């Protein structure tokens, strides 16, 4: 019976107008919620914007603005930034900040989204160590929050591109069922 109820729900799943899926996906990545707003899925746009941006800025605030930064050198390979970049535009100033620091220029916005001063030396006291001392567990928690925000937005990008996962699975199942039925009737007709 539970299975029957599920099927009922499947049939009632509303059709989704994805408009231009590629463009919507790009917008959804650049500004969380913007892709869904473009598709006129206003409720979802609000949910994604609030949840993703809220999580991202909450993490950034916990981490004193230092947990999102781009650094690709041997002693400080910030792989977490790849996940954080999933948030789109809000994480992009880190690229500008990184470029400035690498060229020995002062970072903008009072060090927010800027990498630690170079060189970063894991065996000695450096700028990154100062941040860890100052922020303690907040540095790791802020990093986690901002990473999760980026990864959540990747899910939202997929939703903007191809619609909700369940609806997608239902369509695939309906196509498979129709093909199976057609094959069955063809086999029956051949027997007769």
């Amino acid at each position, binding site marked *: 019976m539970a299975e029957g109820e599920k099927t009922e729900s499947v049939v009632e799943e509303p059709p989704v107008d994805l408009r231009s899926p590629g463009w919507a996906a790009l917008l959804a990545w650049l500004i969380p919620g913007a892709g869904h707003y473009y598709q006129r899925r206003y409720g979802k746009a609000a949910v994604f914007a609030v949840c993703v941006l809220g*999580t991202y800025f909450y993490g950034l605030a916990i981490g004193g603005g230092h947990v999102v930064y781009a650094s690709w050198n041997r002693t400080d390979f910030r792989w977490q930034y790849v996940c954080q970049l999933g948030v789109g535009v809000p994480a992009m100033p880190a690229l500008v900040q990184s470029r400035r620091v690498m060229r020995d220029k002062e970072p903008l916005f009072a060090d927010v989204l800027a990498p630690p001063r170079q060189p970063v030396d894991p065996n000695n006291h450096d700028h990154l160590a100062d941040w860890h001392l100052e922020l303690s567990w907040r540095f790791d928690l802020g990093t986690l929050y901002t990473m999760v925000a980026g990864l*959540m937005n990747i899910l939202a990008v997929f939703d903007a591109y191809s619609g*909700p996962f369940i609806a997608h699975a239902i369509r695939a199942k309906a196509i498979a069922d129709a093909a199976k039925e057609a094959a069955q009737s063809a086999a029956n007709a051949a027997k007769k």
Partner: protein
Amino acid sequence: MAASLLGAIFPATQIWHLVPLMIAVSLVYGATRFERWRDIAEHSLRFAVWVFGFLGLFSGILLWMSWRL
């Protein structure tokens, strides 16, 4: 007694930061799987309960181990 037990279970403030994170993850995950609000809400609630239950269970086991062993 209850306060000290709560203090033992939640010794630091960082664990409370988990609550908004789990709410956000549940909502986003639910919203990417369904289109109707009722389905999204139901799925999000189920997901949140499952995650909190799972974390609670393991926290309980770890607490029991640190207490008894």
